């Protein structure tokens, strides 16, 4: 298998995730797009680990998975808080600091 | 690539077909046996129900009658439901059960997949069924279904932790995640220098076994942990809107999962398919092993069903407190003690 198979797949997922983060206004959907980006990174890490014959790639991927779990926990708590205060999870409506 | 089963040389594709057929049998036979033996006969005996003794000689055709009944019912979709998600939900639940069975060994060569991280894989796949249950609860467009789905999720997530932590004690003691390795470690173990019966981990890991059994009861949503489908509160929880073939899939999934968890418990705590005195890779065990496993599985399911028919239902807050404040701390202490003893001896 080519190394580039995995890298290009990662690039596609990364760009789809970037589109999602930019184009969505629903808080939960933005979080999902961030998950896509993190998974694209994981594919690259594991592919490079296999390429260099080192476990380090997998170790970093495991760390990313742990950090992603923490990120989703805090992120969903924030979305829940926004929903409770504003009865909507539309991120466009969270612009009170604009004045 | 060739493999040999019972000393007969087989091509790779022949071996694969054999393994797939074996997997199908391993999922469906115990599920049918559990339903027929325990749900019909034992429940009828313990709760003085007369119905299951009527169909056929001594009620032996009850299972056929039940399956026939479900197959001829109409496949209903409730109005306003999300049809695609509603249709896929039971399939997700059943698929997760099938994949769980894939790593359970029934003999030295009688396995579907012998992964180096077998037990970890089985526990990971068992958690996928939660998604199927949430799908069913949400897509039914019914408030009782949604409540049941949410209750089931809270319960399954809470009890997955003690389940995994209880397994960790066994993994530390055996020194491997591979299920064949765990069986071999038990078979070759010794109790104070006496190796006649090996060392089934139910003896050294009894705390782990007790926690595993309780967590398993909750994961299977069997009473006393059946709040997600509590008929007096939620009609039938996430199952409310299902009928016909799709309900049958959920039903098979429920009892096949009971079989899968009991098979894993048999491997982890009762020594799996191995019989002391017969060589570990002896060909005899490919025939005898599945029988030994089936007997041990039925013993464990008997315990589950016994608790099911005996105890009344928990309350939702009691259930969560029991998991987070009692089971998880005990299993953490169990892991610490096991690790210390493993290093000390």
């Amino acid at each position, binding site marked *: 298998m080519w190394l*580039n198979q995995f890298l290009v797949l990662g690039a596609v997922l990364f760009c*789809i995730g970037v589109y999602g983060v*930019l184009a969505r206004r629903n808080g939960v959907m933005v979080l999902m797009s961030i998950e896509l980006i993190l998974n694209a990174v994981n594919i690259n890490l594991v592919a490079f680990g296999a390429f260099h014959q080192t476990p380090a790639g*997998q*170790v970093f991927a495991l*760390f990313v998975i742990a950090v992603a779990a923490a990120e989703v*926990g805090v992120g969903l*708590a924030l979305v829940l808080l926004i929903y409770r205060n504003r009865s909507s999870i539309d991120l466009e409506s969270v612009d009170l600091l604009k004045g | 690539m060739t493999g040999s089963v019972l000393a007969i040389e087989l091509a790779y594709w022949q071996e694969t077909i054999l393994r797939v057929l074996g997997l199908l049998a391993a999922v469906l036979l115990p599920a049918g046996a559990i339903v027929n033996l325990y749900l019909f006969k034992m429940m009828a005996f313990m709760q003085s129900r007369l119905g299951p003794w009527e169909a056929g000689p001594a009620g032996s055709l009850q299972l056929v009658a039940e399956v026939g009944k479900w197959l001829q019912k109409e496949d209903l979709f409730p109005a306003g439901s999300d049809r695609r998600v509603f249709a896929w939900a039971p399939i997700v639940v059943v698929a997760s059960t099938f994949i769980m069975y894939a790593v359970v060994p029934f003999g030295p060569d009688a396995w579907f997949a012998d992964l180096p*991280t077998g037990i970890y894989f089985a526990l*990971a796949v068992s958690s996928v069924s939660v998604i199927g249950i949430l799908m069913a609860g949400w897509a039914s467009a019914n408030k009782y279904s949604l409540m049941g789905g949410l209750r089931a999720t809270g319960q399954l997530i809470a009890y997955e932790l003690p389940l995994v932590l209880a397994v960790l004690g066994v993994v530390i003691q055996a020194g491997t995640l591979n299920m064949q390795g765990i069986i071999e470690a038990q078979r070759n173990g010794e109790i104070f220098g006496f190796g006649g019966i090996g060392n089934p981990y139910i003896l050294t890991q009894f705390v782990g076994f007790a926690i595993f059994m309780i967590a398993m009861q909750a994961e299977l949503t069997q009473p006393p942990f059946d709040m997600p489908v509590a008929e007096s509160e939620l009609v039938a929880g996430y199952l409310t809107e299902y009928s016909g073939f799709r309900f049958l899939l959920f039903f098979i999934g429920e009892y096949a999962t009971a079989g899968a968890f009991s098979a894993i418990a048999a491997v982890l705590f009762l020594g799996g398919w191995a019989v002391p005195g017969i060589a570990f890779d002896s060909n005899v065990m490919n025939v005898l092993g599945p029988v030994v496993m089936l007997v041990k599985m039925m013993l464990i399911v008997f315990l589950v069903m016994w608790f099911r028919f005996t105890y009344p239902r928990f309350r939702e807050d009691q259930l969560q407190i029991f998991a987070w404040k009692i089971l998880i701390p005990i299993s953490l202490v169990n892991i610490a003690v096991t690790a210390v003893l493993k290093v000390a001896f």
Partner: protein
Amino acid sequence: MVAQNIFFGIIAAAMVLSAIRVVTTKNVVHAALYLVLVLAGVAAQFILVGAEFTGVTQVLVYIGAVIVLFLFGIMLTRARIGQEMDVDNERRWIAGLTAVLLFAVMTFALVDAFEDTDIEVNAALAPQTTQAVSDSIFRDYLIPFEAVSFLLLAALIGAIVVARRE
């Protein structure tokens, strides 16, 4: 090797289609369910390159916990059946353009840098096994590991404090 490439192609195609549905569907629950397909595909790709432990962890953590958390959060707030309005903002054409340009740049760089370099995937190779990974975590990366566990504790407390009803 041919079989592996065919599997890679099938899984990758399914992953990309599902990922596109994640960012275009109008229903939040559907988006989460398509995300399950993408994550399962990622796990399958990991197993394909011999990273078995990471693949199984991907299933356990992402599908078993993260997605369930998503679905739980969606259903606790609001989850209407059918399509919802206003899930996209008005900048989606610019967003699409950004994504396509980014993809073009990245792909050009990758193809230019690695051309047709091969990955040697052999399950028997020592550095890829679960044992090697655990040795690596608890020797070379012990301090990052402790940092991650501390981060998880902080996130746990933070999430409880943020979401708690006073």
